[in-house]
């Protein structure tokens, strides 16, 4: 390690003010702090020792928590592909196909997002912030596998610039950045984001795994089928017309956005986030509670549509509900920040997501819009929690005057 340290020290002057590579200072800085813990010491007044936790560690924990969903997503992409083209291949071939199909999205998302972050940091003369490491990982997981790469690039750029950098960077944003990218795609390129043909890669992945789609194949997601159902019976099927139930949604070998399908993989992630206390269990639990509650309400009193009759427990395992609850709603920056507020915030996300799913057939999936909408209201919820504390203080003061 000493050799590396010496090398970093040797090239440092090039990146400092007046050096040849001055314009790449924040890049150098980013790599240096990535490789070595900075030797910045505490100021004269204040705490002279600090907890070893930093944003790098927190953010990388979230990424670790996302890995099961990513790996399962890759496998599922391959699985669905070979199912669609009617070839029987082994596990590793399926995984390899999925890997090759998903990898370009990860590369594009990181290249575009980090590129903008680096430039932004250089312009502002600040350190590179870690927030995008999570965002860049989330984006490939919440899009259909057939989204053109250039769209992902445009959406990522839009989200990073207009949902984050203009507000001041990580920690200052109002909306969940990855969801803004998703919303941008959803409203900008609707034909590529919904329908029956976007969820399963029927073509090749980087030239690998070609074949022809077999007859009787339909690539609609369960929620898509519900939203467009012609009867009021909530019957969902897989790509070949076999019925799907709760446990199919739980395991997740069904069409859908890359990372959202498997509850098992998401639960692994949730476990990591909860034991490390990076995500709030209050938010997570209350989203599920709100979703279940609203699902039951519609089951009992809802209109006579397929979506309203869709069993409440199925709402929780199909579509992006669980993924959103675990990884999106718990984003500490855009969620409610007070402990009481987290309960209300989560509950409303759960309720709204189901309301949108059931009452608006135009949007088969309500989770994205529910979270974005509650992102707006999170500060308002916090305002009332904080105001209660303020009022208590005022009434205490008035009592002491009397």
């Amino acid at each position, binding site marked *: 390690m000493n050799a590396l340290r010496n090398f970093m020290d040797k090239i440092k002057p090039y990146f400092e003010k007046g050096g040849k590579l001055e314009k790449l200072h924040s890049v150098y800085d980013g790599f240096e702090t990535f490789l*070595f*813990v900075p030797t*910045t010491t505490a100021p004269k007044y204040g705490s002279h020792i600090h907890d070893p936790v930093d944003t790098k560690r927190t953010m990388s924990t979230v990424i670790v928590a996302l890995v099961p969903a990513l790996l399962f997503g890759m496998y599922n992409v391959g699985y669905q592909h070979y199912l669609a083209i009617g070839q029987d291949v082994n596990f590793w071939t399926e995984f390899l196909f999925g890997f090759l199909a998903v990898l370009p999205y990860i590369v594009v998302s990181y290249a575009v997002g980090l590129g903008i972050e680096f430039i932004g940091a250089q312009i502002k003369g600040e*350190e590179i912030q870690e927030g995008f490491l999570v965002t860049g990982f989330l984006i490939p997981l919440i899009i259909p596998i057939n989204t053109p790469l250039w769209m992902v690039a445009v959406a990522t750029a839009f989200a990073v610039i207009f949902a984050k950098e203009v507000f001041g960077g990580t920690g200052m944003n109002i909306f969940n950045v990855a969801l803004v990218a998703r919303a941008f795609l959803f409203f900008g390129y609707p034909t590529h984001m919904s329908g029956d043909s976007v969820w399963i890669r029927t073509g090749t992945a980087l030239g690998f795994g070609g074949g022809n789609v077999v007859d009787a194949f339909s690539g609609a997601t369960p929620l898509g089928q519900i939203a467009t159902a012609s009867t009021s019976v909530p019957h969902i099927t897989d790509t070949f017309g076999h019925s799907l139930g709760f446990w199919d949604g739980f395991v997740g070998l069904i069409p859908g956005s890359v990372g959202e399908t498997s509850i098992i993989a998401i639960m692994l992630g949730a476990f990591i986030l909860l034991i490390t206390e990076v995500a709030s269990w209050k938010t997570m639990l209350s989203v599920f509670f709100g979703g279940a509650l609203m699902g039951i309400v519609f089951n009992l009193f809802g209109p006579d549509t397929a979506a309203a009759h869709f069993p409440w427990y199925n709402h929780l395992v199909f579509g992006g509900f669980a993924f959103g609850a675990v990884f999106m709603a718990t984003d500490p920056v855009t969620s409610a920040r007070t402990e009481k507020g987290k309960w209300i915030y989560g509950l409303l996300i759960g309720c709204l997501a189901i309301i949108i799913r059931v009452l608006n057939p135009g949007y088969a999936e309500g989770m994205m819009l529910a979270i974005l909408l509650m992102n707006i209201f999170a500060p308002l919820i916090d305002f009332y929690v904080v105001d209660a504390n303020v009022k208590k*203080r005022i009434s205490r*003061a008035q009592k*002491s005057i009397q």
Partner: protein
Amino acid sequence: MTNVIKTTKGLDIPIDGAAQKMIERTVISDIVALVPDYYHGIIPKVLVRAGDRVKAGTPVFHDKIHENLNIVSPVSGKVLAVNRGEKRKLINITIERDVVNEYENFGHPSLESLSGEEIKSALLKAGIWPYIKQRPYDVIANPNKTPKSIFISSFDTAPLAPDYNFILKGQFADFQTGIDALAKLTPGKVHLGVKANVPSNEFLKVKNVEITEYEGPHPIGNVGIQINHVDPINKGEVVWTVNVQDMLYIGRFFNKGIIDLKKIIALTGPEVIEPKYYTTLPGTAVAPFINGNVHKGIPLRYILGNVISGIKVDINDFIDPYASQIFVIDEGTEIHEFLGWAMPRLNKFSATKLFFTPLLQKKFFKKIFGDIKFSYDARILGGRRAIIMSNEYDRVLPMDILPEYLFKAMITGNIDKMEALGGYEIAPEDVALCEFVCTSKLPLQLIVREALDMMKKELE
């Protein structure tokens, strides 16, 4: 039975180097210095010149705003120099001390016959007033205001804090006199915070006070936390606070009629070879405590006060009159930790669940691995960011305050919000743990200090 207040909010940081319970010797340097910067908020007007003779208790400078507020010499001797820096800012006043201390005569006033006003003017004149502090703003008490109550915490829960039951052994008579004097300065009560479940706690025998017992991790020993639980400060109210050892100055003044600022401080910290207690005087040089008793070969940081809210000083500096502790830790500038954010870092103590610390401190693992020795240094171990994680500060601040919102009001300089969110009740030391645990590495104590100064300037 006294009241017992319990809390689980807070954090005890396990750090090595607690002082053994023995007083090593008396350390008073030949040259002592009075540093105006240590008396926060005082605008000094120097009253002596180089070459003047002073006694213990002779005023050396006073406050330009409250001219009767003297800061006095702790020793008798000859004024060596009045040192000034840029823009004639007063750096310090050095005094070469006599071998035998001569004391200024204050005529041995008898406490029973004095009124509150007379006690006040005596304390102001004798230079004991700076040891009485006030909330709001955590500054030296404004002598023109009457406090609604006075708080003293008899225990310190900060890392490796000195044990006041040990320090005060044989001095409880002076402590009691101090209490009796303060009781005349407020129409309200004098509150004494006592640590619960301490066998034969002498502080429980103190009279003329309202005793409350406290149980919980640091910062429950902080007087600010105790005020918030017992008698919170509202807008327009003032509460005074005095440190345990500073109570002795008041007691000695009325018992003996002299200014005797002797105090005991603990030399502590992982880089001290033999951590011990020393008798000393405010203004003594730092070096004589350190020399030969610290580990060599690494850059060291000397801290007056405790490790999470003290002041970093140079070895050539002088003891802060408010400090009861000198702390020595590794500065850390020569440590180059490779990929630190991703490593297990078993030797680091963290309040989060992102390290193995919480696991290793469980009984089961302690049996297998033994007591883990955590290493500490002065690096902030990360980069400064905007506030990202929520509920971090709340867990270590046992006050009825929403810290994140108060800090945001302070950062943005919004005085109305500071007022509404508890700005009157907080002091920098109360948020020391918030600063320790902060993922975003914000200098919260500096933020609070500057905000309080701004509030004071705007609202008084």
